[in-house]
């Protein structure tokens, strides 16, 4: 085979990434500010795992609307129902998630009331729509949902911490700092994206964020690895040029890996079904910003933290 197109992609690109660092950092700062603002003002559409309550996944005929379902669910007087349609179904039927809030009461009473509400909701839906099938139900009690919130956020925290420790061992602390800034950047922008789109943020999203963190770290490490190598190789070259060279050296790899990962994720988003939609969406977004942050955030930060070259003493 002689048609390897990669030949046309130069191994030594020379894009002046570092020169544009102020624009990139400014852009990132703006996005972060916007994300935090959205998060504070609009908030996040938490999924059933974190909110607690009752949710059913129903499949209906094409003519059933969100409003029809809402009317029936609201008539139960079990709290304000939420109806959400799953988007990318390649079928004639439609799939909706119909949910009710946690039922009031103390301890076990509330738990039993949740189960009763689930039964009432299922019965009401199947009675009122002839072509409706209940395909799945979920009930998460108040105590469990709070635990899930705690474990979810602990998981993100613990993972970030462990990765930093690892980077700190493998590189110097300056790299560690650059990596964490990039990671926090990614996490905040992902949360911001979920505020803007109001897509459901659930346990699967936490899994996605952790994977994004892993992926972005992966990208960052590859660039850092090259920076460290080039710092040894070109002892006289100014730091900013070494950074730029390293980003360019690894550029074709960064692009190719992102593209294959995106290809797999888009397939998951389009075909993987209603329950994986949020996960795939978060991952696609995460791969994009993870790639961006490794180039435009993680590497330029090293200019500010003044990485040491081997054999030289800190001034």
């Amino acid at each position, binding site marked *: *085979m*002689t*048609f*390897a197109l*990669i030949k046309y992609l130069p*191994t030594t690109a020379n894009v002046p990434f570092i020169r544009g660092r102020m624009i990139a950092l400014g852009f990132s700062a703006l996005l972060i500010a916007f994300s935090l603002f959205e998060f504070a003002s609009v908030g996040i559409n938490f999924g059933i795992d974190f909110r607690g309550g009752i949710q059913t996944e129903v499949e209906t005929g094409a003519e059933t609307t969100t409003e029809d379902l809402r009317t029936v669910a609201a008539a139960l007087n079990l709290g304000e129902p939420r109806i959400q349609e799953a988007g990318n179904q390649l079928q004639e039927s439609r799939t909706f998630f119909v949910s009710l809030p946690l039922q009031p009461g103390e301890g*076990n009473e509330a*738990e*039993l009331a949740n189960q009763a509400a689930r*039964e009432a909701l299922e019965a009401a839906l199947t009675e009122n729509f002839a072509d409706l*099938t209940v*395909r*799945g*139900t979920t*009930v998460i*009690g108040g*105590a*469990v949902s709070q635990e899930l919130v705690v*474990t979810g956020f*602990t*998981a993100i925290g*613990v*993972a970030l911490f*462990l*990765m930093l420790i*690892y*980077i700190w061992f*493998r590189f110097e602390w300056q790299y560690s700092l650059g990596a964490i800034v990039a990671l926090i950047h990614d996490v905040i922008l992902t949360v911001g994206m979920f505020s803007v789109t109001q897509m459901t943020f659930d*346990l699967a999203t*936490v*899994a996605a964020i*952790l*994977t994004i*963190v*892993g*992926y972005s*770290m*992966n990208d960052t*490490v*590859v660039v850092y*690895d*090259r920076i460290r190598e080039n710092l040894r190789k070109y002892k006289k070259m100014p730091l900013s040029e070494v950074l730029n060279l390293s980003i360019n050296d690894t550029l*074709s790899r960064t692009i*190719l*890996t992102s593209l*294959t*990962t*995106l*290809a*797999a*994720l888009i*397939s*998951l988003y*389009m*075909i*993987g*079904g209603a*329950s*994986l939609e949020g*996960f795939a969406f978060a991952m696609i977004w995460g791969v994009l910003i993870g790639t961006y942050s490794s180039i435009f955030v993680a590497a330029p930060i090293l200019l500010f933290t003044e990485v040491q070259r081997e054999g030289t003493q800190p001034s």
Partner: protein
Amino acid sequence: MLYFGRWKLLAIFVVILAGVLYSLPNFVPEDVRYEIDEAAGTSEPRGIWRFIPSSTVNLGLDLQGGSHIAFQVDMDEVRTAQLEGLAADARQTLRNEQLLPRSVAVIGEEVVVLLIREEQRDQAFESLRQLNGPVTTVSGQPGLAQMYDMRRDPDDPGAIRIGVTDEQFEAIKERTLRQSITVIRRRIDGLGTTDPTIARSGDDRILVQVPGAEDPQQIIDLVGTQAALSFHLVDNTVDPGPNGQARVPPGRTIYPVANTQPVQYLAVETRQLLTGENLTSANVTTHPSYTGPVVGFRLDTQGALVFGDITTNNRGRQFAIVLDDEIITAPRINEPILGGSGVIGGGYTYDTASQLVILLNAGALPATLTPVEQYTISASLGRDQIESGKLAIMIGFAAVIVFMVVAYGVFGVFSVTALLVNVVLILGGLSGLGMTLTLPGIAGIILTIGMAVDANVLIFERIREEVQHGRTPANALQAGYERALAAILDANITTFIAAAVLFMLGAGPVRGFAVTLGIGIVTSVFTAFVFSRLLAVLWLRGFKPKQLPI
């Protein structure tokens, strides 16, 4: 880097062969692999499958359909029951010693004994100490700590305070959980479903997973019922009042009667003549005195003797069978019943009678269980999720194949072959390690397919650079693999950390994502660094190219 010793080659071959063997059953229909005898309900591997692995990947409930319910065990109730039992024992002990207490009461987390005469406190303390002893651990061995923490109240010369030690409470909790799991298993088995999972989860929860169950309420009814059964004599001289709220003399209790409209009440003697533990078996049957099905029961030898005595001595009176604070039947004793068997009747359908039979045969739960988390997936949704998952894997895979081959030509073919081996190894790993594949797990596989080529890309890009620096093909290959190793390891270890954290902290199906992602990382480093290198080396030896085509 370019030389593979004989043993290394053998090791690579063995790993891949194991992966292929363990993943193979997933591609062969079950009736080819197993001799299924439906009448006997058994299935035996047939032919070659007797000698090679024949089991497929375990599918999570979200892929095969079924119900998952987490029950909370009410440990406060267990603690209260323990303290009340202790108070009763203390009362009895003091009465036996003629040391009359003013009161023995549960106050907060302690039993407080107040004596009428303060000078008797030391004597009372000594006799109460008989109640104490080392904790009996779950294994049945005496533990290091004592069961109770007993002390004389320093502020009140007539008071003794008895608390339950933490060790004792831990042992009781443990016993309660184990006993509950045994009872639940017997109850669920009574439903006749296949492969239910009943396991503890955390400190005070029990997880029940029943594949194929589409009605969670059936399981909730079955597990959420304590099924504490007791026999009492009815006291018709006490008026229970219209709402069962009347004040009753000591030793009497009022219970509602099941299936009465409006609800009727009866006062019974609090003393339990028999309990569910005296029951040896129950079954659905019929009886001439009742229309519809009734529940027949048999008592053990001791129970039969007691029952015989009661029915002989109390002819003409009513006795009540109480299940979870509700009278389920209260027949009049017309003649002595000496055989130790009887029926509970009145208003049962076949289903409700069967349910009661399952509950009675399985025994009572030691505590109340409340469902706190439940999800149910219909089998059809499970099937759809598998189908869409498979399709997404294939399309994702195809996209990556096209991509890599177009970009890297023959080297792309190596990486794609390595990727194929990778997926086979993931499947083999899941089957061989007995892990469960969930829908997020499928997402993990797809993600791995996208990310696994990263290691190859890193290597190929290195090789490209080395070629441009004017190295010979063999040299460039050598240097490329050598230099890419550090970056590959660093990059994969960080992602592996994320997977490990998710596995340890994650709940339910999300854990399945961590499993496939974690296995995928290990296999992708292996396939990229070892297997694709082998392919590249073989190609180099076979074709001896003057220059590398990338």
